[in-house]
């Protein structure tokens, strides 16, 4: 059974968060940071929505990006080093699998979504559907 959350009062006050992810488990990668992985930045222009995430060391063949309706899912994994005779003196980088579901603020054309991975940065470009594009409204002077 899937639980959908409603907007909490704290989210209404935060002008920066236009959307939140309603479900998506804390993953091992989160390593106690208490936040979903990966962190994302989102921006738009007139006819496209952009979602970017930093995924260093993740190979594109383990990455899964899907768009269904108004939900974008980013799934993947970064394996840990499995070697004998290995001692960690410091371990800050998480490993393991991750899944993040993001609810998009605008309707997009799922067939035209483009995703590219370069130097560990994933950039997803989602064209807005026609209805979601801004339309200039002519203001007529009332008589």
């Amino acid at each position, binding site marked *: 059974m899937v639980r959908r959350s409603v907007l909490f009062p704290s989210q209404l006050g935060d002008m*920066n968060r236009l959307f939140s992810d309603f479900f998506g488990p804390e993953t091992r990668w989160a390593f106690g940071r208490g936040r979903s992985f990966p*962190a994302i*930045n989102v*921006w738009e222009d007139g006819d496209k929505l952009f979602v970017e995430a930093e*995924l*260093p060391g993740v*190979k594109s063949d383990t990455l899964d990006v899907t768009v269904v309706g108004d939900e974008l899912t980013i799934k993947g994994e970064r394996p840990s080093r499995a070697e004998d005779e290995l*001692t960690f003196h410091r371990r800050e*980088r998480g490993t393991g699998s991750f899944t993040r579901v993001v609810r998009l603020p605008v309707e997009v054309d799922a067939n035209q979504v483009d995703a590219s991975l370069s130097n*560990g940065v994933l950039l997803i470009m989602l064209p807005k559907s026609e209805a979601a594009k801004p339309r200039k409204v002519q203001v007529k002077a009332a008589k």
Partner: protein
Amino acid sequence: MANETQHQGGTAEMAAPEHTRSGQVYRPDVDILEKHDELLIVADMPGVNPDDIDIKFEDGTLTIYGRVTDGRLDREKLLLQEYGIGDYYRTFRISEQIDASKISADMVDGMLTLRLLKAEHAKPRKIKVAAK
């Protein structure tokens, strides 16, 4: 044994970055791993081209600096911002257990791996026990 090698491994850090570009500079997450004959430092520096990494070793201090490509720095009006974008900087104090002339690095998918070979005298040596 772990405590001993931690001290021998010889990597401690210092603060205070110097940078000539404006904008935030970040400290990359690292893993420091010790293997039989080498130390590995793996640093996450997404958005940095292999050509834009500076690695310096001077006076027992190893410094890594990664320049992020300009195009990503001036994004305006984000709808949602969960992370900042900027160059990466971090320093490590390297003990004499490391052979300074044998440090190598490779960078792939925004992940920098530094291999520091241990100096000969620092390698663990197995001692044969003769049966009498």
